[in-house]
């Protein structure tokens, strides 16, 4: 397994280099640059913009720019955001806790919902309940998140007054106090609910199908013949086997935890990585944009690796050599 891990890790290096080239070229291929949004006679003049382009190195040939960026990048210097005028690393670190909180809570919500629905459906396939669950799941999957977010805000925040409609914390509460963390949790619940409830379809259906498939297997028949209670058969014997394929998703979830939710974060004005990413694209903030894309690519690769390793852990039949 160690050998396998090392092999995989080495394999990611050329992958990351390739990704970095693609990310860089795509970023530079986007029309305009971080200064084209600043054309405004109130604030500035053409000379300033020209000077800044020179200062930021936008006038150098692309390979030189790439080389400058990647040398800094591998040394841990992500550069200075052109929009926020401060280190990209600091900005990302500032947003990570929010996004992580949102990601974890929404993942927990997804798990709870998906497990309960999946187990119910798997046990009673092709009944009305099963079909209703499948229907709900696919409708949720199909609803665009911005619609869901706006409806949720309208209903839960403005109508019922249960949750705040935006932000990540109430600024008037003293930082570090118990109320402060409670307020954070209170703010994160609604976006997490939207995110979590929207993403249940794949888990639920995977789990359901696997439970159905496993329930027809020999070991189930044996267990039944032995007189094991049906509940136990489903909740222990079948479930354990059915969770294995779900481990694949865990790898993707890992990157999604940090990647945040671009649309949902924006609508809830929840300052996390997703919102930062969107901002950096629209304002052509290359250093932030590229650092984030690299970070997310790396996390996806790492997530896949972890998922593969976990396969071996949860299912000793799979041997990684």
């Amino acid at each position: 397994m160690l050998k396998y891990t090392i092999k995989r890790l080495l394999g990611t290096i050329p992958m990351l280099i390739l990704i970095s080239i693609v990310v860089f070229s795509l970023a530079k291929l986007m029309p305009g640059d971080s200064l084209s949004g600043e054309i405004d006679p109130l604030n500035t003049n053409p000379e300033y913009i020209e000077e800044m382009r020179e200062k930021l190195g936008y006038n150098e040939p692309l390979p030189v720019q790439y080389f400058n960026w990647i040398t800094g990048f591998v040394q841990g210097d992500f550069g200075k955001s052109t929009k926020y005028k401060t280190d990209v690393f600091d900005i990302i670190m500032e947003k990570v806790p929010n996004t992580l909180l949102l990601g974890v809570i929404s993942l927990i919500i997804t798990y709870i919902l998906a497990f309960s629905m999946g187990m119910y459906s798997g046990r009673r396939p092709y009944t009305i309940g099963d079909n209703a669950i499948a229907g709900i799941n696919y409708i949720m999957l199909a609803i665009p998140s911005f619609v869901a977010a706006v409806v949720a805000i309208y209903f839960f925040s403005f109508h019922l007054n249960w949750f705040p409609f935006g932000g990540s914390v109430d600024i008037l509460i003293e930082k570090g106090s118990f109320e402060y963390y409670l307020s954070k949790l209170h703010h994160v619940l609604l976006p997490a609910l939207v995110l979590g409830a929207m993403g249940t379809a794949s888990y639920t259906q995977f789990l359901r199908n696997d439970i159905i498939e496993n329930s027809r297997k020999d070991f189930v028949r044996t267990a039944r013949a032995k007189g094991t209670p049906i509940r136990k058969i489903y909740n222990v014997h079948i479930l354990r086997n059915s969770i294995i394929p779900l481990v694949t998703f865990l790898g993707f979830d890992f990157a999604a935890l940090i990647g945040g939710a671009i649309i949902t974060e924006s609508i809830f004005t929840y300052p996390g990585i997703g919102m930062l990413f969107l901002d950096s694209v629209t304002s052509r903030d290359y250093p932030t944009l590229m650092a984030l894309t690299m970070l997310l690519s790396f996390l996806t690769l790492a997530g896949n690796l972890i998922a593969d390793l976990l396969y071996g852990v949860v299912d000793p039949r799979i041997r990684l050599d």
Partner: protein
Amino acid sequence: MKKNKSLLWLFALILVLSAFLAACGGDDSGSSSDDADKKEETETETEAEGTTEGEPQAGGTLVYGIDAPPEGLFSSAFYGIATDFEVIDLYDEPLITYNENLEPIPNVASWETEDNKVFTFTFKEGVKWHNGEELTVNDWLFALETIANKDYDGPRYTNVQTIEGAEAFRNGEADTISGIEVVSDYEIKITFDQARVNNLTNLWVYALPESVMGDVPVAEMSGSEWVRSTPIGIGPFKIENIVAGESVELSKNEDYWNGDVNLDKIVVRVIDNSSVVGALQNGDVDMLSLQPVSGPEVEPLENVEIITYPGLSYYYVGFKLGKFDNDSQTIVEENPKYQDKQLRQAMMYALNRQEWVDAFFFGYANVVNAPVPSSHWNAADNSELNTYEYDPEKAKTLLDEAGYVDQNGDGFREDPNGDEFIVKFSHYATGNPTFESRAQAITQYFEEVGLQSELEMVEVNLYYDMIEKDDPAIETFFGGWGTGADPDPSGLWKADQLWNYPRYNNPEADKLLDDALDIEVVGTDQAKRAELYIEWQKIVNEDLPMLYIAELEEIVALNNRVGGVEYDVSGQNNPAEWFVTE
């Protein structure tokens, strides 16, 4: 079994927790949601009494909404976007401000000048920074030197470069800016490189706190805590707390130099456009600038009042009349397609601008006939201009006269040579879905008078890039400009300017603009300047290098419990005067 049980437990726990949180949220924002109730009460009371403005009241918290996350550059010298400035405007003040006619008036500093070249500024004594240090002219000198420093990464150098010796200082040839002379702590003399009528309006008039920022190298200033997390100013409120990207808490400055401050706190909060109406209705936000599109939805709300005041921006449809060479700063080539003035005038008559403005700006904009917003002192009155009232018949006659007639019977006009003539119109595309329909509407007006038109939506970043580089794909284009307190349009209109996007080249018009700034010609006589500008507007109104569409109004939504807020074209009144009735 056990697993299932613990799962159930977890589920139950979450349910309980969320119920608890929801309940406690009610209490917790106790202050705010109770406030909402109270608000409604006071409202009905005041309505019953038939008054909308109460007596100024001390205390209370006002929630101020902004529609985009701030970048976090909370410093007059470094900020880049309007939302950051909205925050700055609450805790800091310029030394010189503007009245409702956009004329400079003294704030902390008053000035004297005899020749518009040398200015002597006198500061009020006893004005304090939020950290207790006194504001002196050294803080202003510090701000000017920071901006003129070669490491400075903000966009304000243009407001300092006219000071004598600023260029030399920037190039490292001098240790100080020779045109600035500190006379005493409260008196400073600034000499400009030449006498201009607009030297004062162009000058940078915010101070920076030298006591705290003095040790920070200029290159690191924009990332420093004094800009990002603990900025200080001289305004009626001081920054208490910042949650990056979402909210800012400001509290009353007890030592404010200019009268008493009514409010205890202002909370600035980012509110996404999709939540604006709900937040206003629920009283979650008291004060907010609105997009025109939200106006019709907010108007019916009973607890909210909409205030409009004239803005300083205008929209236009430009023609590309030439090509600009940035190295030589000249227009090097003429595009023949739209050179015919009659064609341009016909296109102007073809536009029903009033209808268009009502449809897409919901009445929050006014049709303009020249590129100077009407609230500027040098704006020409409509009686002096051709107002190009919507007249498709006249447009058709003009086109016939100019030789644009339908020769092959396809329903569209050909150009005088008999070749196919298509008006290619470009508009920028963002996420806003109304842009395409409003652009489509313009092409329809052209088609109604027989000019075949084609619309192209271009991604906004690429769009301005293409316009600036005179890309041949851009022929006619939609654009907008904002103007500042200084109403001089030279930077956007003279033939040697990069941002003269239509590449309008009329030496006679340029001469008028030059004269209006030339102290030899106009002296300090504003009426004389206005005359020249009006003359200039008559020319561009006749020439139509762009079709002037409309100037926007600024729209603010105010909760009824807020009082003491006033607006004029120069912006909001002093936030110290704002109050809330509980």
